[in-house]
């Protein structure tokens, strides 16, 4: 280990190297492995075929989130089969059955649909206090970068790597480069973490972070709540970075204290001392630095078919020739059914989705409810509000947020990935247009032929009220 100044990411990396050999990737120890139904079945089949076990079931946790429905969840023990099951798709059912069978066979903790701790994998990790500073966390899901918000090194992996982690609790990894995204100034009122990360991705591009771990730094980042930080780190992958993280500070410690799996008593003090040693040292060098001025930002929205194709809501659909990739922009406009020069505020939507691992936490629901209170969802517009976890759902109901949503005409759902990804019953129809608080506006992401505009929860709610892309300040 070097005594030279190091970045947060380098400190975490160095503390997890099991084995380092010239000319080979480092072998990293994995502190926490999150599992869900979609990317794990083939990995468990691999374990079975080789006669292997999960090396550390005590560092592994699973949930059902991607393909399960968010309606008809009557509570713990909701049936997976039979006439009372909310799961009507037999292929989805088979996949959930596989996860349950694997959890039982391999001794893995699982939060099934209906369970009080069930939810989107990246919402329940931090919520349970399993996500802690300085840890290395992986999951077969690209939005694992979310967990970087507490100062962990967290990245998405494929199914072969899932099997590797299950079998060995390690992963061979080539050390990425480091990028500092310095966010100076303060976010103006009405501008959120989602707007900030959309602006950052528009600046870096979808491939700009490729090969890097991003550390988000600066005044605007320090001022974000933990929920806001989770939103920012969540979308690191949309800038091409496998991981994004934020140095732990008092916001982090306040968030963690008292959570079910956070250390307590003397262990808390020991952990705290370690966590305080993690932030990037003075004088540590990053391979690349990008600076964003938060004070000039306004609400952002995507107009195209990748998350880098975003602009301030006050802008207009761009002329493809004026963009950095004219061919991609032209194809995006064709797919999205948009004409250059149209004010973004004039774009009508059919559906509004509030939820996902990007914006399905309690602060997000509060922000949407604050806009909707005393207002109605526009006629002809469908609005889904999907809490990121059953615990978020419960908290929202204690605060009466569900009543705000239903009084406005929105649907109040159970926890899951829902309309983020088009593999459960919540999808867009061909040609249907959404304002969505999720993370990807790829072609068909929310359902074949669907058209997605990524927005913040506040913009989503204001859009639901008018039926076209709208900021709360416009109401």
């Amino acid at each position, binding site marked *: 280990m070097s005594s030279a100044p190091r970045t947060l990411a380098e400190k975490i990396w160095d503390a997890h190297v099991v084995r380092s050999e010239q000319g*080979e990737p480092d072998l990293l120890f994995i502190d926490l492995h999150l599992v869900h139904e979609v990317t794990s079945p083939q990995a468990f089949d691999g374990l079975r075929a080789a006669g292997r076990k999960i090396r550390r079931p005590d560092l592994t946790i699973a949930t059902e989130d991607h393909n399960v429905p968010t309606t008809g969840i009557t509570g713990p023990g909701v049936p997976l089969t039979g006439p009372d099951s909310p799961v009507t798709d037999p292929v989805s059912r088979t996949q959930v059955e596989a996860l349950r069978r694997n959890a039982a066979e391999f001794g893995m*903790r699982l939060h099934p649909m209906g369970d009080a701790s069930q939810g989107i994998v990246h919402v329940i990790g931090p919520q349970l206090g399993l996500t802690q500073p300085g840890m290395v966390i992986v999951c077969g899901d690209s939005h694992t970068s979310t967990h970087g918000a507490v100062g962990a090194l967290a990245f998405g992996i494929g199914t072969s790597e899932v099997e590797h982690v299950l079998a060995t609790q*390690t992963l061979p990894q080539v050390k990425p480069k480091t990028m500092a995204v310095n966010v100076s100034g303060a976010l103006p009122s009405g501008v959120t973490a989602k707007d900030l990360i959309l602006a950052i991705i528009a600046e870096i591009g979808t491939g700009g972070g490729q090969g890097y771990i991003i550390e988000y730094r600066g005044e605007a980042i320090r001022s974000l709540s933990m929920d806001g930080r989770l939103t920012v780190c969540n979308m690191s992958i949309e800038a091409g970075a496998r991981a994004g993280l934020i140095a732990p500070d008092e916001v982090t410690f306040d968030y963690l204290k008292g959570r079910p799996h956070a250390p307590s008593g003397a262990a808390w003090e020991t952990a705290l001392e370690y966590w305080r040693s993690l932030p990037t040292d003075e004088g540590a060098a990053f391979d690349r630095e990008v600076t964003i001025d938060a004070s000039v930002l306004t609400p952002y929205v995507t107009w195209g078919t990748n998350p880098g194709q975003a602009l301030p809501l006050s802008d207009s659909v761009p002329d493809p020739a004026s963009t950095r990739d004219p061919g991609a922009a032209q194809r995006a406009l064709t797919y999205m059914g948009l004409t250059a020069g149209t004010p973004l505020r004039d774009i009508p939507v059919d559906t509004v989705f509030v939820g996902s691992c990007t914006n399905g936490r309690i602060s997000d629901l509060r922000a949407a409810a604050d806009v909707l209170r005393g207002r109605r969802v526009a006629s002809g517009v469908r609005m889904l509000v999907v809490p990121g976890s059953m615990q978020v759902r419960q908290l929202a109901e204690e605060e009466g947020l569900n009543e705000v949503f239903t009084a406005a005409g929105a649907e109040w759902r159970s926890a899951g990935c829902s309309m983020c990804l*088009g593999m459960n019953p919540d999808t867009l129809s061909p040609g249907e247009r959404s304002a969505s608080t999720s993370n*990807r506006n790829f072609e068909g992401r929310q359902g074949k032929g669907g058209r997605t505009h990524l927005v913040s929860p506040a913009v989503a709610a204001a859009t639901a009220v008018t039926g076209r892309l709208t900021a709360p300040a416009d109401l």
Partner: protein
Amino acid sequence: MEPFVTQTGRAVPLRRSNVDTDQIIPASYLKRVTREGFGDGLFAAWREDPSFVLNQPRYDGATILVADTDFGIGSSREHAVWALLDYGFRAVIAPRFGDIFRTNATKAGLLPVVLPEKTVALLQDAAEADPPASVTVDLAGREVRATGGGLADSLAAAFEIDDYTRWRLMEGLDDIGLTLRHEDAVSAFEASRPGWLPVTQ
């Protein structure tokens, strides 16, 4: 996985940037619990367009895909790699890849080759020519070669790949088996971990 040493064949030009893994294999196909048979879902939405490049009979049997930059961005789904392999591709050439896709590819035996944009454009032109170029991806020699396809001279472009990944791909080695050789090191590391770190059970 099947070893990759060298591959010579027909190349398919995919003149699109930012091809995300949702396009390579839509989420609706991800409910399956096997690794096989994903070729039917490869570029499923785009293949509904009769003019899409994979629908042109002249590219039947192609083994090399030549795409624009940022291929394989987005979702971590390894199903994207399985779909390309199942369809018959053994290598993808692009100026830049999504990180997770590139890693997944090397774990499953699909070779991702990074070449400069100009070289990729030349290869795409040569793949589109009639008769098309014959393209060789030589992992042993770390080189892509193409002849014919209207190329004035034979094209030979070196590409970079680290020694370890190259060796693993050429031998078709299973990563887990390699790691298990160092189980003692893993056990020693485990013994050194602080007791306050969280456990799930």
